């Protein structure tokens, strides 16, 4: 994945992109980005109540910049809270509906196994969120399309970036899109969705299920795996045996060392879990793109259906036959035909409507094609990114397991030596 080595002393390197593949964008070429710190703030919220919240420090600096003395140039900084990142993401979702927009780190801590409460102010949670937010920004910065967005650039550099977009407009757009999507999923079915999108939707559902299961099980199994019983075991024993005492005292000590070192490794495993979580949240973004496609497809089908209906109506009016049942048709049958003039004006109105309909259909078609093309472009890019990232994650995971095994062997070998001296 994308990670940057950030130190608290400001000594950091540019984003390391995934192995081998060049995802360096124009933005990354000119700027280094990091989320260096987190801090607490207190202020009055929208209902005029005091609240404590966390802010994160975004640091940017021209790439490979060094001052005259050879020390790195001081970065530009600004503080932002989580909700501001959310707003940026919303803007991107609305502006680029065909892009799989990178996800934010989780809002609330889930899948915790070593803490009873998921407290948003908990320092470990804050730290992991800091890393997650940095990852989010680096993902954006390395995206071929999103990295060129001006609002994103301003988010990094201008504290009042919001003034550059019409916030109300964004919310309206989002609300509109959201409600249309909701009605779509609730009531209507698309007749001819692009099969690739259907497959992709199912895949992302599968992936989401599988990763959720992994994270859940991991949380449970780690509880069992981190047993302190062995240490207890040896210390109980050594308490009574004078002759065996010394040997066992050392064995117990080795067990303690092992337990401590396992803690370190389990911390690394948290990073693996975070990588999985990112892709869990990515599946939502993927599904969102699929739904937008369905929406456009639906609108296209509706437009085509509407046009075809109008054409039929016109044909009926011209030929006098009624193939489509309509109330007007029935009433005219019952109460007498309309006049030639009336019919001609109707036909003329219909012709105009048909022309409008054809234009709309053309537009929708173009919109749909553009969407599919752009979306599929990004989907291919995403697939490659996913495969590289996950393979790397699996390698790291395997390395971690090996490290644990080696420690285990060392501890027990040391213990065995103690036993041999008994």
């Amino acid at each position, binding site marked *: 994945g994308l990670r940057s080595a950030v130190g608290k002393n400001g000594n950091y390197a540019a984003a390391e992109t995934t*192995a*081998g*593949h060049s995802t360096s964008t124009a933005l990354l070429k000119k700027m280094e980005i990091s989320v260096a710190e987190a801090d607490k703030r207190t202020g009055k919220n929208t209902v005029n109540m005091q609240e404590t919240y966390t802010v994160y420090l975004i640091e940017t600096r021209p790439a490979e910049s060094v001052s005259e003395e050879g020390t790195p140039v001081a970065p530009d900084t600004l503080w932002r809270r989580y909700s501001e990142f959310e707003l940026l993401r919303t803007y991107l979702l609305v502006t680029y509906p065909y892009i799989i927009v990178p996800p934010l780190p989780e809002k609330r801590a889930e899948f915790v196994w070593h803490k009873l409460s998921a407290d948003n102010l908990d320092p470990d949670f804050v730290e992991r969120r800091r890393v997650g937010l940095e990852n989010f920004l680096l993902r954006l910065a390395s995206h071929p399309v999103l990295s060129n967005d001006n609002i994103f650039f301003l988010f990094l550099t201008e504290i009042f970036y919001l003034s550059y977009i019409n916030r109300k407009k964004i919310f309206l757009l989002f609300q509109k899109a959201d409600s249309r999507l909701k009605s779509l999923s609730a009531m209507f079915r698309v007749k001819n969705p692009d099969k690739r999108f259907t497959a992709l939707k199912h*895949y992302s559902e*599968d*992936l989401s299920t*599988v*990763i959720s*299961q*992994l994270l859940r*099980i*991991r949380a*449970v*199994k780690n509880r*069992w*795996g981190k*047993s302190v*019983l*062995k240490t*207890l*075991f040896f210390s*109980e*024993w050594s*308490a*009574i045996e004078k*002759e*065996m005492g010394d040997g*066992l005292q050392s*064995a117990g000590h080795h067990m303690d060392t092992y337990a401590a070192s396992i803690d370190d490794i389990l911390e690394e495993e948290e990073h693996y879990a975070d990588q999985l979580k990112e892709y869990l949240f990515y599946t939502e973004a993927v599904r969102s793109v699929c739904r937008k496609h369905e929406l456009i497809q639906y609108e296209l089908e509706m437009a085509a259906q509407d046009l075809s209906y109008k054409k039929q109506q016109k044909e009926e009016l011209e030929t006098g036959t009624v193939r489509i049942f309509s109330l007007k048709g029935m009433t005219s049958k019952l109460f007498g035909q309309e006049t030639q003039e009336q019919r001609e004006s109707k036909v003329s109105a219909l012709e105009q409507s048909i022309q409008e309909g054809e234009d709309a259909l053309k537009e929708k078609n173009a919109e749909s094609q553009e969407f599919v093309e752009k979306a599929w472009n990004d989907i291919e890019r995403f697939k490659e990114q996913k*495969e590289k990232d*996950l*393979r790397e994650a*699996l*390698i790291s*995971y*395997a*390395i971690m*397991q*090996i490290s644990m*095994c*080696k420690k*285990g*062997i060392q501890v*027990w*070998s040391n*213990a*065995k030596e103690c*036993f*041999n001296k*008994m």
Partner: protein
Amino acid sequence: MSVGAPRGLASSGQKLITEILHPLSAAEEPLSPGPDVTISAEKDKEPGLTNGTPVEISSPASASVLLSRLQLDGDPEADAHDPFGSGEPRDLFVTVDDPKKHVSTMETYITYRVSTKTTRIEFDLPEYSVRRRYQDFDWLRIKLEDSQPTHLVPPLPEKFVMKGVVDRFSEEFVGTRMKALDKFLKRVADHPVLSFNPHLNAFLTAKDLNKRQGLALLTKVGESVKNVAGGYKLRARPVEFCAMGEYLDTFSQKLGTIDRIAQRILREQSEYLTELREYGTVYSTWAGSEEQLQRPLEGVAGCVTTSCGALEDLSDNMSQDFLPVLREYILYIESMKNVLRKRDQVQAEYEGRLEAAVLRKQEDRTPIPVEVEKCQDKVECFNADLKADWERWQRNKRQDFKQLLTGMADKNISYYEKSQAAWESLITLLQEKQTEDKTSETN
């Protein structure tokens, strides 16, 4: 102790206590072997068995057993079953193996083959092979305890198992039990006194073990200790026996704690194993919906499965090899405490009688009766036997626990090694694929 002409050790079997000097008794007299032992020294012995020269033996198992024992002669630390560590060659070798199931109309049970090789004259033949079941071992142990109450008799594996919980005929259970029975018999055979017990002889040699005939072989020692009058109150227990009692109490308590902790460890491992298995399954499922990532994910699933298998082995070892030994020692301690109590009784009786006799002497000059002196001898003999056996027990225990812990370490190391190997081969696979991809990209 003199080395050279091999001889059997003094047996407290059919002799009067007063005539036999315990090998470790306080008196610094040199060991005087009893008459039967002299005879054995003169008699022609089977060549090779006693002075370390390997001999042609039909069954390979017994050859290795003999060799391993003989090689360890003269190395007191190496084999805790050599009680005196003097390199004195042993002349009685026993093995328990070959379990077989017997089905009759009344019951189903397991018998084991008990093989004996010996040069002792107490045995008519140099080799024996009989079949015995657990009941028979139990009988032997009871007889030994009864007839040699001043000695610590090694424990047997647990008698009762919950029928619903444990499968009495499973390979693991039978195997564990057989190992424990073998250990028991070997310890008895190595004991300088118990190994000469006629009940042991019968156990090892009789085609049909007639258990009812046991009473006739009750030894004099057994009788005298059995007939210790109760009701005497112990005045002053010697310090060393107090220490023994305290040690046994503390030790058995600790063993109980450790048993419970070990069981909790096993339960935890079992829960962990369940979760781990499910974890591996999910990776397999995931692999099914991927293309490029299919093999890596299946690789991960495979590694997790391997770890599961290795962990299962580890748990099995804990429950089959480790816990039974712990429990055996807990039983052992119970029987040892009984012996300590008996010793107290014997001493109490002596003190009581002595006090009564002294009072009478003060009254009417009646001399101290011989019985009182005999009591004193009894006490001293018991104490000496017990002290020697205590030392032996301590050595055996240290050896057993050292073996136990070392075995546990080995099994754990093996678990980690298996797991590590699996993950390492996966990395190779994953990194191969990476370089494949890189080269295909640049092409």
